[in-house]
């Protein structure tokens, strides 16, 4: 059965994020909260990386269960990690954890255990700042992603299949991304084909959707195309999604609309025994 390989230091998998940095991303998000789509995807990516790192913390260390890369596409298609990681296509997650651009502080409101709330200051690492300029060479980016993933698969043939996550408003300007996305999804490890998931951020709607099973009901052609490009959720992820209270079917795709994909990172089985719902 595919998608059963253990994700561990000795058998790591890869997370490759494709980040739309085109000019259209400077448009505001649907619902007009004064936030641009570039702001939203940068937030989303920072949260995804945050979640991914925390899933690798073991005692006082970060285990290299994942190799992580980010490709930006806008004026050009380039590795988009910054600071000391600039120019690198894939980096072990421990290195990523130690090298954000900066660590900001955020104030969260948490229960004080006596019926009230207290402010808690938490650290929020930032790897990406919002950016936008140029066209949307999504096809070229998918092709580059396929090259990077192929190299990873050569080194890790038995890995849990690499996950490629595209964050975009869906308006490709260099052709139809169906072909390149299909080529990418046909790459496989011994444990199954590469998973391509899409997080679509829209200017035209503030409706949010997670893991739909059909394209009917999606608001526009860009959304429908990104839906068609997305892999089906593997059965184990479907189960985790159900346990988290989401409605998913065997046909559910790794596609979210105006929502973030941090849940996908939580749905990966990496043997963790601290289940948030059991903490209370």
């Amino acid at each position, binding site marked *: 059965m595919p998608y059963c390989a*253990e994700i561990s230091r000795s058998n790591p998998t890869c997370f490759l994020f494709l980040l739309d940095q085109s000019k259209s991303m400077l448009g505001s998000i649907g619902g007009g909260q004064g936030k641009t789509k570039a702001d939203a995807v940068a937030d989303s990516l920072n949260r995804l990386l945050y979640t991914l790192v925390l899933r690798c913390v073991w005692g006082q260390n970060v285990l290299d269960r994942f190799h992580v890369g980010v490709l930006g596409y806008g004026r050009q298609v380039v590795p988009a990690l910054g600071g000391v990681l600039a120019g690198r296509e894939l980096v072990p997650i421990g290195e990523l954890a130690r090298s954000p651009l900066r660590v900001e502080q955020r104030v969260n409101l948490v229960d004080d255990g006596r019926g009230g709330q207290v402010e808690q200051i938490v650290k929020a690492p930032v790897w990406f700042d919002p950016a936008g300029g140029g066209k949307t060479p999504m096809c070229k980016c998918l092709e580059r992603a396929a090259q990077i993933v192929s190299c990873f698969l050569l080194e890790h043939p038995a890995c849990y299949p690499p996950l490629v996550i595209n964050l975009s408003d869906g308006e490709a300007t260099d052709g139809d991304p169906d072909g390149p996305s299909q080529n990418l999804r046909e790459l496989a490890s011994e444990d199954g084909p590469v998973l391509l998931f899409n997080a679509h951020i829209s200017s035209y709607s503030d409706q949010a959707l997670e893991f739909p099973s059909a394209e009917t009901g999606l608001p526009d052609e860009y959304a429908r195309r990104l839906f068609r490009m997305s892999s089906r959720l593997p059965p184990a992820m479907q189960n985790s999604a159900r346990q988290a209270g989401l409605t998913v079917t065997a046909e559910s795709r790794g596609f979210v609309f105006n929502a973030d994909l941090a849940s996908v990172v939580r749905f990966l089985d990496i043997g963790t025994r601290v289940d948030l719902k059991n903490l209370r």
Partner: protein
Amino acid sequence: MEECQDALAGDAERGRFAIADGAAESPYSSLWAQLLVEEFVRQSERLPSWANWLPSLQERWSAQVTVHERWAARVALPVNGTAQATERIETAVPWYLEAGLIQGAFATFLGLVIEQRSWYAVAVGDSCLFQLRRNELIRVFPVTRAADFSNAPWLVGSRTSPIEVPHKYGLQQLGDCQAGDHLWLMTDALAQWFLTQAEAGSKPWLALAPLAQTDGDDASAQQEFAAWIERLRSQRQLRNDDVALLAVSV
């Protein structure tokens, strides 16, 4: 095995024994597991209420973690004057450990008390007790079927309220014991193997008995146990996880 987070403790004279399985992804969980088992064994009440013994233990965990973090910060960074030193200590915890330190450490727990002809046990999570009499398995607690092990057992937290999980989801059990009985405490991976074998009609205790009857402090016995565990792992009979076994003979 990345790093052992299981802990065990026992006082044969007082008939008190405990094992705990620290959740590896939480920081300082092996310390937490160790504090839990040692403190349970030290208690004088048979099965003390969680609210009575957990809070002071949680304070000790917190104090030891704070000392450790400060020490680590002093080693890592130059200290110039007290005010600055305090500030540096706060910033020295890497961002990815902070959430875990706030949330605390977690562990499953199984405590056993033997008094004359009875035993009393308390469990949170899936560390298990097996009772053997005349070469037959007569009692299993708290997980009774191999299929019931999951990746989300109930856990005792170093920062969560004693009247929540351990009180609400902890289980207690009592049984009788006779001279010659064996009571084995195991953390989840070995317990799951044991139950799977027993359900299939074989007698896993026969394989385990020679290993369980050796002295745990004996280095060659430890090596033999480790080699046996390694064989089960390579045959994929045993999940790759920490293993702890505490064998008590009445």
